[in-house]
């Protein structure tokens, strides 16, 4: 519910900006880079593509002599962000350490900022690494390089091609595309078992990530080249283990389409859904407020979902939206059917179903969490009461009870007959003593 509120709040707040921005939130994007490792000229095409998508880029060069080590990307109380997105290129300086700490990065992320973190074998700085570790992404530390001795296209064995169809998440990049990506001078990461991780690209099975001391970090497809994370507040973070991946040469030749999709996903320009309202009511359309539910009532649950795509909200097409009626455990788990479009959203409904024959406080909820897609949740808790004493069938409506009813009325009838017969046949007794005692009183 809170989540839902947050999303709607976010949406309402940003309604004015939506027509301008391509994302569900504004696109003021901070780019942190280190000119000793990354030259912006080498990435100009990538950055240009962002600007073409209405990103307002703000650059922060950590090795510049004017660089303020106290640069701010969080508000003073740390409860809100000064930027909407952040792109971190590989950095190695420690000058930014007082402000660019892992906990501040995490704060930025938790406040709803989307992060694209790029590391390279020479640029894995501690704050970024520790931040990633908190999201259960464990990139190889400095000095580890991913090589593929079988399929690499260069002498150092660290540039190799990956099929676009290897993409692990269709919401990020459609695996049916026939694009061929080139990954170069990069590193790989181990992933933890968090449910919120969105793995995107695995390292080739013939690859090996090791340092000069021959210590391995990942072997074969154990490692990941690109991985993302979406937290419960729906902020997104994508980690890429190579900055060369974005460089002009490879961008133009191979990676453009993939990077476009990847950054769109990261900055919530696509694969975003929201709940536009959920309601439940009796099968005859009376609402809970008018008539509270009781056991075995027939009810309907409906939810409206829409998806943000190409700069506008459209009805969400999904086939796996499930409804749950639960009291600690689910009593029902129903896959909802898509019905007609209502404005910009799609109506999903459970159809008429019968409430369990069990009173209690039940939660009507849709908890739709798919890796790669915004998590949506809609909950409402309502009591299902027991039958009132007048709501049970009357005795004469139960055929089995008619035997007893007959016997009761037979006894009553016969008793009356007996009394009448007894009185009629008994002799008259004159009760003299009673009369006498009355006199005395």
């Amino acid at each position, binding site marked *: 519910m*809170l989540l839902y509120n947050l999303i709607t709040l976010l949406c309402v707040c940003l309604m004015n900006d939506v027509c301008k921005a391509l994302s569900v939130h504004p696109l003021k994007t901070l780019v942190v880079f280190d000119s000793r490792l990354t030259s912006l000229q080498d990435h100009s095409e990538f950055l240009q593509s962002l600007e073409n998508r209405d990103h307002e880029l703000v650059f922060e060069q950590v090795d510049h002599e004017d660089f303020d080590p106290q640069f701010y990307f969080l508000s003073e109380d740390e409860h809100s962000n000064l930027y909407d997105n952040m792109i971190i290129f590989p950095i190695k300086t*420690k000058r930014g*350490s*007082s402000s660019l*700490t*892992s*906990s*501040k990065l*995490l704060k930025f*992320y*938790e406040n709803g900022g989307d992060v694209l973190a790029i590391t390279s074998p020479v640029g894995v700085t*501690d*704050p970024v*690494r*520790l931040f990633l*570790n*908190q*999201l*259960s992404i*464990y990139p190889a*530390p400095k000095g580890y390089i991913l090589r593929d001795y079988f399929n690499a296209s260069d002498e150092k064995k660290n540039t190799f091609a990956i099929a676009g169809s290897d993409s*692990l998440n269709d919401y990020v990049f459609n695996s049916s595309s026939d694009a061929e990506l080139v990954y170069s001078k990069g590193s790989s990461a*181990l*992933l*933890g*078992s*968090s*449910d*919120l*991780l969105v*793995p995107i690209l695995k390292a080739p099975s013939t690859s090996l990530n090791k340092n000069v001391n021959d210590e391995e*970090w990942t072997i074969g497809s154990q490692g990941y080249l690109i991985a993302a*994370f979406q*937290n*419960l*507040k729906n*902020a997104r973070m994508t980690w890429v283990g190579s900055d060369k991946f974005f460089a002009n040469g490879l961008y133009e030749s191979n990676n453009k389409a993939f990077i476009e999709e990847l950054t769109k996903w990261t900055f919530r320009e696509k694969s975003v859904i929201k709940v536009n309202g959920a309601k439940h009511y009796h099968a005859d359309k009376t609402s809970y407020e008018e008539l509270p539910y009781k056991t075995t009532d027939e009810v309907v649950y409906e939810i409206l979902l829409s998806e943000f795509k190409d700069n506008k909200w459209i009805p969400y097409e999904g086939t796996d939206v499930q409804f749950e009626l639960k*009291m*600690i455990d689910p009593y029902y788990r129903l896959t909802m059917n898509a019905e007609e479009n209502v404005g910009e959203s799609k109506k999903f409904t459970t159809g008429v179903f019968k409430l369990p024959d069990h*009173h*209690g*406080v*039940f*939660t009507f909820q849709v908890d739709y969490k798919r*890796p790669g897609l915004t998590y949506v949740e809609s909950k409402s*808790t309502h*009591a299902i*009461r*027991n039958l*009132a*004493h007048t709501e049970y069938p009357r005795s004469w409506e139960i055929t089995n009870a008619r035997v007893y009813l007959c016997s009761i009325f037979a006894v009553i009838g016969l008793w009356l007959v007996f009394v009448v017969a007894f009185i009629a046949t008994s002799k008259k007794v004159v009760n003299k003593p009673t009369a006498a005692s009355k006199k005395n009183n």
Partner: protein
Amino acid sequence: MVDKISLLKTVSTVLKVVIFICIIGAATSARLFSVIRFESIIHEFDPWFNFRATKYLVANGFHKFLNWFDDRTWYPLGRVTGGTLYPGLMTTSGLVWHILNNYLGLPIDIRNVCVLFAPAFSGLTAIATYYFTKACYHNDEIAGFLSAGFIAIAPGYISRSVAGSYDNEAIAITLLMITFFFWIKAMKTGSIAWGTFAALAYFYMVSAWGGYVFITNIIPLHIFILLLMGRYNHKLYSAYCTWYCIGTLSSMQIPFVGFLPIRSNDHMAALGVFGLLQFFMIGDYIKSKISNDNFKVFLKTSVLLLILFGVFGVVGLTYFGLIAPWTGRFYSLWDTDYAKIHIPIIASVSEHQPTAWPSFFFDTQFLIWLFPCGVFILFSELQDEHVFIIAYSVLCSYFAGVMVRLMLTLTPIICVSAAIALSNVFHGYLRVRNDLSGQGMKLKGFANFFKISTKLIVSSTFLGYLYLFVHHCTWVTSNAYSSPSVVLLSGQTNEDGSPVYIDDFREAYAWLRFNTKEDAKVAAWWDYGYQIGGMADRTTLVDNNTWNNTHIAIVGKAMASPEKKAYEIYKQHDVDYVLVVFGGLLGYSGDDINKFLWMVRISEGIWPEEIHEPNYFTADGQYRVDEAASETMKNSLMYKMCYHDFPSLFGNSQEGNDRVRNAKIKSSHVYDLDYFEEAFTSENWLVRIYKVKDLDPEGRSWKEVSDFEKESSATGGNSRRVVKKPKIEPRLL
């Protein structure tokens, strides 16, 4: 002459009325200590539920009340409250409120009706006791008045009926005495009318208190003893059959009772005696028709058949589950250790503990030794109705010894028996007029003087006892039974001499009421469920109704588990706040740490493989809370919540002093809370409320979050030079 008699009659009637008014005045005023000393407030625990139910009744009407499904308790199960309560108390006070407001035009708050309900009904109890004693003992008015006076101020009864103690017992004792009065009348006269009245009073009693089972058993017992004594007559037959049929049928109209009267073994005695009476009646009839020898043969065979039929019947029905097995509460009446071993939830209630002997004296003072005298006097006469009092005394004396709360049912009969004994004493010794005027036996000067002085000494001694009794009762009432337990007295006074109150409970409940969401769920040990519902108006998981042992065990398990486990349990149940009562700072011994072992025992009963009571003791079997406490104890949620930040309260020494358990609490062994955060602590730390944290947005456990935060604040978040390969679980995707 006629005028003189009628004048005397008038005077005696006026005197009677005046005495009644005095007794009612004494009964009512003795119960008002708590209102004067504190305020007009509902006491303790159960009354808060009754109060809440009454408010619901007044607001929604009887029909809705009867079908009330309460979704604010026992979350998420809810409680079919209308079908699981005894509605007599609420309907009565609702009716009183209705009459006062709508017919008499007295706009009085329902709370005041509820607070003053028990004192008002204690006056009625006194009147009913007067008639009961009179009916039982030769129309002896002195005994009647004495018993009325005793019951009016006996602490044993006051303990459950002070102003604000708005509990079922408040009305039940009144109804108990009324039912018994009608029953004595019915069995003495054999009148169907009195029998019907007894049945109706019994119905009212059934609607008011679960203790009605006592009547259901004592009346058949009375009949049974009379039958064994060979005192069968038609009066008994018609009185009992009328009472049983009407009483049972009407009692089944109470939803909570339902079909119990024909299924539960508690009610089988009444049914059995009903059947037995029919056989006696038939036997009586046959005896008058056939010869003596034939009758003896008939008697022997029929008795044998009956016994066989009866035994096999009961065993068979129990075996096939048609009648309920003997309930746990029933077993605990016979074996005081039964509950402790098998049903900790029953044993954990303090009023289910065996009575300590001094409390008999404490609750009834000199009546306790007059009581056997009264029973003896009745035994020496042994009329039919005397048997009732004797059976009642014997049965109740035993039960009161087993369970503290049954002291309440014993008190009326103590008062009655003692009044009979005292009335006999006064009959013999207080009448000195004849001796003084010399019209009595002609005795010589010295002997007469001796006789008169004996009488005076005995009488004045007993008058002295009576004076002491009043003194004792007032003292006990004022000191022991007049605390609302919601508000406490600190024993200190302000500068102006007014007492200092400890009002932490209401402070905390008010905080909950005004600072949390309306649908917030609060987990607390069941003792506080009714109060949270009544005062804070928040949804609770468990309360004093204790109908679902498993649900209570869930809360107990969470309290006894390490934080992580507890967090899972609470999240599963949508809990927002956890409330604990901690008396360590104040020296309030009834706190949750002292109740903690019951939580452990109750949850161990359900999850024996997860919770082990011995783990909460030190290696040498002590229950400690200081440094020596076991690790399981220190890691349990209850311990952490109670002592969270407690040592730092004592300045720099980092060593707190728990005044209840007299233990030194050091900050080194009070571990950090990660999954819960302190939301509120009352002035004297009596009530502490913790908020259950939301899930971490990144899906980490709060332990990991707190480790991360500690590390990053210690190192500035950046320096961890050596990077080791993490040990990670295999991914499923």
